[in-house]
């Protein structure tokens, strides 16, 4: 989506591709977070599951996987079912947007469903004091960093949050010793 204004402004191919790369850097975080769960899969599976990796597919599966509620070989199928459904819905919604975009109206604030879904999926990821510290530091950074261009605020906030979690973990370990 970041590419659209650049394209209409006549930017070069390399610039647009670079912008898309930076905007989507968070995908590497999702990839790293899911990687231990898909470690032993054949290359073809890894390619397919990676291709279907979206914000929503990650958010809807990672908490369950990290909690050990799903074990192989069910993990790949669970993820495939979630991610494929989201992918199909996304393509269908994009088509609908192309044909109905000008006609649909925003009177019901239905775009608010998006943050609500992420809230519903983020809360279960906060399981203890250390993950709470990660969320808190990420959230506080995000408030101020969100104005950065190219989605860089998101990646900065996520990294600060991970660091905050690590710090909280070592502090708690020290106190308990």
């Amino acid at each position, binding site marked *: 989506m970041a590419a659209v204004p650049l394209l209409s402004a006549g930017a070069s191919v390399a610039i*647009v*591709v670079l912008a*898309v790369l930076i905007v989507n850097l968070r995908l*590497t975080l999702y990839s790293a*977070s899911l990687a231990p769960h898909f470690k032993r899969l054949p290359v073809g599976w890894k390619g397919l599951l990676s291709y279907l990796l979206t914000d929503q597919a990650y958010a809807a599966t990672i908490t369950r996987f990290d909690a050990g509620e799903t074990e192989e070989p069910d993990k790949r199928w669970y993820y495939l079912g979630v991610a494929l459904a989201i992918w199909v819905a996304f393509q269908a919604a994009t088509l609908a947007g192309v044909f109905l975009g000008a006609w649909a109206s925003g009177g019901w604030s239905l775009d608010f469903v998006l943050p609500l879904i992420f809230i519903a999926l983020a*809360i279960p990821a906060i399981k203890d004091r250390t993950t709470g510290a990660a969320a808190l530091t990420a959230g506080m950074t995000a*408030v101020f960093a969100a104005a950065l261009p190219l989605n860089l605020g998101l990646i900065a906030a996520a990294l600060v*949050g991970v660091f905050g979690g690590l710090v909280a973990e070592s502090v708690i370990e020290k106190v308990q010793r």
Partner: protein
Amino acid sequence: MSPLTLWLTIAGAGAVTFALRLSFIALLGRIEIPPFLGRALRFVPAAVLTAVVIPLLFYENGALDVWLGNERLLAGLAAALIAWRTRSVLFTIGGGMAALWTLQAIGLSL
């Protein structure tokens, strides 16, 4: 922009995003992750999901808005409470939308 450049751009953008998605998933299994990185990964879901949500609540039309007039922030807080108590995506969406519509109705009548 010529059709060829446009298609080149689309192909390039698609290729780099796929590479980002594939990066660690492809890498792991060939190499072992260092223990420090493994510990850090535990915090990625909480950190990145919060980092995605917060700007959607705190910013309206591109401007920071931390005030009681920010209906989305208040409705988002209500939704977080519902998510915490019920652990249900549907209740969170339903409750959050109801909270937003209520706040908007109150805002209009004031």
